[in-house]
């Protein structure tokens, strides 16, 4: 077996330039909007609710249908008649269809679809569709939504509470009784989404004669949504084909929520009898695609005088908007295994409420739920340091899971596979020259300047175990005999050698800029002793031809961990076959041979050697030369699955991810008290993601993730007024950071290879998106400490911060 530090690795660990770049740099990428996969395409425009909450009384379609070139209009009434609601991850009776059927519950909810010869025409006709509404009272705040007199969105549910779970690990009550110090804080995390520059796109063709519906879209997985959509459409799963083009223009979790539109456009195709294309526009994206939840959190922390944390209590109100839809309530439970972060306390209570209000719907956004989690936890750690007069680094050190404790089982069921948290924190302290920064701060403060230093630590989970979703369900419900447990995280790869010895690797992934083709070429080149240029990588997902399972897709930082593992195993299977074949040709025992520099050679002494090219030619052209019993063909498929992915147990413990990295960050800022402008002076981030396959690509993920975190911390918010109108439906109002706002980042790595993956790798895709909200908030709190200001609410826009500073200065 090749070890991460073995001599077999020539390409892994190198910043190999990307295979993908030439086509993308020359305008030859193939995104969903670029090349029609079928002829005679019609185009859709979606009619959306202008009301946040309204009963639909009827539709008047006459004028729209009379327009020349309009193929048809489908409404919510058709959706109700021809499809089923999507299954949701909770037991509350929420009927979530792909369009509003009885009531609209947020601004932008689809109510009808117009299909016409061109997009221009479809939009003309959409303006002519008349929908009669009876506006209803609106609620947008998750706590207000739970008050007894709040307007109720779903009458069948009876309240706006979609789900509540109280999870207890250890004995938190005792921890709080025995504490020297108890701290309580309230936090607010904003609703934001990483708004990929390419919007959603769907092309649907329902062939009623064949009974097959083919959908091309920039869907990123998880492919559990495929069977869910098949059920909604009343199709057997082998009659619904999802195809994903080779290029997706960014996603960050957001495009996992394209599935309701897949169902809607499939229905539009079925009912109008034509192939239909829909490309979302930016306004639609900001109104009605997907974002993370806004959350109100109440936190309590119990600690001893020396700073040892005994336990914590989390009370969460996650706002999932008008309907809870799968994979929510992952907003609460996706980090179950890493609820305690990098700290070793054992007692925890989590009271998680998922609330429906008249805002747009939610789902995974980069760092899914972890940005929220660590913003709160790291804020609490700083408050503890302040309370006890300890340095924030020191208070964290006293609570870290120690070196040598790995693999480490958390009280909530997580299994941290590897790491060295104290060493990683030390590296960040050293890189940031922390002591020097503190001296600088003292000088700045003496001069009346607001200079602050923030710390944030995070366990960075990768490869979600599908089993975590069941944490949302009551253990009694899960104990019923008819309940089927859920677990797993698998990926597959096929590697094949052509008659001239060149290699093709086929994946079932949906990359959105992560460079899978490059990474796979590096891995296969190392395994087979080739150069990356010898390897062609195909990663166009197609549910009819690829080997896949419900957890497939490119999300939750999966590829670096589970995807690369499948590739390595497929290559090793093929290598073993080549060795067995060469052994037969040489008439030697296979054990006496090894695979070295692209050839099979005797381990010792001289003797004939066979190159991959030579073996490939013989095996393909002359099957008689194969040993008896060997299957012809030079290809291997491997499906890699984690055995540590188990279903949630009766005590609500679950290993919610499969590999766990670690992040330690330090940031120094200065706040201008007059303008409230925040200037980032230093930003150091140290990551341990196991073996790094391509450092250039890994650092790219860190840069990108950090800017998403910064966007949520300082600029981005899907803001709503009290009537449920979205105030940020353009990029003029929804502020995406530009190059001028992007900080310079100092990056370092610590490498603790995962014992669970063949290459020792882990995921890194979400990275600093989950730490930056915490580190900026802590740095700004530290800067404004002399004014008594603590940041418990994001985004800290200049106007909010300015008001806080003015108020503090007056008192």
């Amino acid at each position: 077996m090749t070890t991460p530090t073995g001599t077999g690795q020539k390409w892994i660990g190198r910043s190999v330039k990307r295979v993908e770049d030439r086509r993308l740099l020359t305008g030859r990428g193939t995104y969903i909007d670029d090349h029609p996969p079928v002829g005679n395409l019609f185009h859709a425009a979606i009619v959306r609710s202008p009301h946040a909450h309204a009963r639909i009384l009827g539709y008047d379609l006459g004028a729209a249908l009379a327009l020349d070139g309009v193929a048809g209009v489908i409404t919510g009434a058709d959706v109700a008649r021809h499809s089923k609601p999507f299954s949701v991850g909770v037991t509350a009776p929420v009927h979530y269809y792909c369009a509003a059927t009885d009531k609209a519950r947020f601004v932008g909810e689809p109510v009808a679809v117009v299909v016409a010869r061109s997009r221009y025409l479809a939009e003309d006709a959409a303006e002519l569709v008349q929908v009669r509404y009876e506006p209803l009272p609106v609620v947008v705040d998750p706590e207000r939504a739970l008050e007894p007199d709040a307007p109720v969105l779903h009458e069948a549910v009876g309240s706006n509470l979609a789900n509540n779970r109280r999870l207890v690990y250890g004995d938190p009550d005792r921890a709080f009784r025995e504490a020297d110090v108890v701290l309580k804080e309230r936090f607010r995390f904003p609703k934001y989404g990483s708004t990929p520059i390419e919007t959603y796109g769907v092309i649907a063709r329902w062939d009623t004669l064949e009974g097959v519906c083919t959908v091309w879209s920039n869907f990123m997985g998880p492919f559990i949504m495929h069977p869910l959509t098949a059920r909604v459409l009343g199709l057997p799963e082998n009659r619904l084909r999802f195809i994903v083009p080779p290029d997706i223009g960014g996603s960050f979790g957001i495009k996992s929520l394209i599935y309701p539109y897949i169902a809607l456009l499939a229905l539009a195709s079925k009912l109008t009898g034509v192939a239909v294309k829909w490309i979302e526009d930016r306004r639609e994206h900001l109104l009605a695609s997907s974002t993370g939840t806004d959350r109100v959190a109440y936190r309590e922390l119990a600690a001893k005088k020396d700073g040892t944390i005994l336990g914590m209590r989390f009370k969460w109100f996650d706002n999932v908007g008008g309907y809870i839809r799968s994979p929510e309530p992952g907003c609460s439970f996706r980090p179950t295994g890493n609820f305690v972060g990098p700290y070793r306390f054992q007692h925890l209570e989590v009271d998680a409420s998922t609330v429906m209000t008249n805002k747009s719907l939610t789902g995974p956004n980069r760092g899914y739920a972890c940005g929220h989690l660590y913003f709160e936890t790291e804020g609490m750690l700083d408050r503890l340091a302040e309370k006890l007069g300890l340095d924030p680094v020191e208070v964290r050190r006293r609570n870290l899971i120690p070196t040598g404790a790995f693999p480490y089982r958390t009280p909530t069921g997580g299994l941290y596979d590897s790491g060295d948290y104290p060493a990683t924190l030390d590296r960040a302290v050293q890189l940031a020259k922390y002591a020097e920064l503190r001296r600088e701060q003292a000088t700045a403060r003496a001069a009346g300047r607001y200079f602050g230093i923030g710390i944030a630590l995070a366990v960075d989970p990768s490869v979600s175990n599908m089993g975590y979703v069941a944490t949302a369900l009551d253990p009694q419900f899960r104990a019923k005999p008819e309940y089927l447990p859920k677990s797993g995280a698998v990926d597959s790869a096929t590697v094949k050698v052509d008659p001239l010895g060149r290699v093709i690797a086929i994946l079932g992934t949906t990359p959105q800029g992560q460079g899978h083709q490059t990474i796979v070429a590096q891995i296969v080149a190392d395994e087979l002793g080739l150069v990356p240029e010898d390897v062609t990588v195909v990663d166009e997902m197609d549910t009819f031809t690829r080997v896949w399972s419900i957890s497939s897709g490119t999300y939750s930082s999966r590829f670096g961990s589970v995807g690369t593992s499948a590739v390595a195993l497929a290559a090793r299977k093929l290598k073993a076959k080549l060795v067995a074949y060469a052994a037969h040709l040489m008439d030697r025992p296979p054990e006496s041979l090894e695979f070295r520099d692209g050839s099979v050679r005797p381990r010792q002494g001289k003797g004939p050697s066979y190159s991959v090219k030579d073996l490939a030619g013989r095996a393909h052209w002359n099957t008689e030369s194969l040993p008896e019993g060997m299957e012809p063909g030079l290809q291997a498929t491997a499906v890699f699955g984690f055995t540590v992915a188990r279903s949630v147990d009766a005590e609500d413990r679950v290993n919610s991810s499969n590999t766990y990295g670690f992040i330690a960050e330090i940031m120094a800022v200065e706040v201008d008290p007059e303008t409230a402008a925040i200037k980032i002076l230093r930003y150091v981030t140290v990551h341990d993601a196991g073996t790094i396959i391509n450092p250039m690509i890994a650092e790219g993920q860190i840069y990108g993730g950090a800017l998403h975190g910064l966007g949520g911390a300082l600029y981005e918010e899907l803001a709503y007024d009290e009537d449920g109108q979205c105030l940020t439906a353009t990029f003029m109002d929804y502020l995406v950071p530009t190059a001028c706002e992007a900080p310079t980042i100092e990056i370092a790595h610590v490498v603790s290879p995962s014992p669970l993956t063949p290459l020792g790798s882990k995921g890194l895709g979400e990275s600093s998106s989950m730490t930056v909200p915490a580190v900026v908030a802590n740095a700004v709190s530290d800067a404004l400490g002399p004014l008594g200001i603590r940041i418990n609410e994001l985004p800290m826009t200049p106007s909010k911060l300015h008001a806080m500073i003015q108020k503090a200065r007056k008192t």
Partner: protein
Amino acid sequence: MADLVTVRLKVNGVEREGRCEPRKLLVDFLREDLGLTGTHVGCEHGICGACTILLDGQAARSCIMLAVQADGAELMTVEGLAQDGKLHPLQEAFREHHGLQCGFCTPGMLMTSLDLLRTNPTPTDEEIREGISAVLCRCTGYQGIVNAVRAAARTPGGSR
């Protein structure tokens, strides 16, 4: 539907002609009528910059102008950067410095960077950031792009 009008323009050195509605956006005309799908649509309201092209030598948003407004103009799109199968030095620099991930903003980013280097061949880092702030990128955190533009500025032909 309004009567179709003829639009004639020069794109990447080649005379092109198409017939479209007067209301057709230039970016849709480029993509749908001329088959130049390298130019991307990201917001349709002139903020994200993915659709940036050079119009008579200057950077312009092709999503907030009409095709008829470009009648008689000379355009350059991302497809015109590489010559004789060889990447433009700016494209090479983006590849070398990991100035792209998903590639969707990249055509607009390249054209904007070219416009920047033509007007300011030796920009400081701050000027690069200011210059490319006309285009939104959600993947790279911009660092790789800044590095690439800086490197291209130092390469002969980088602002060609």
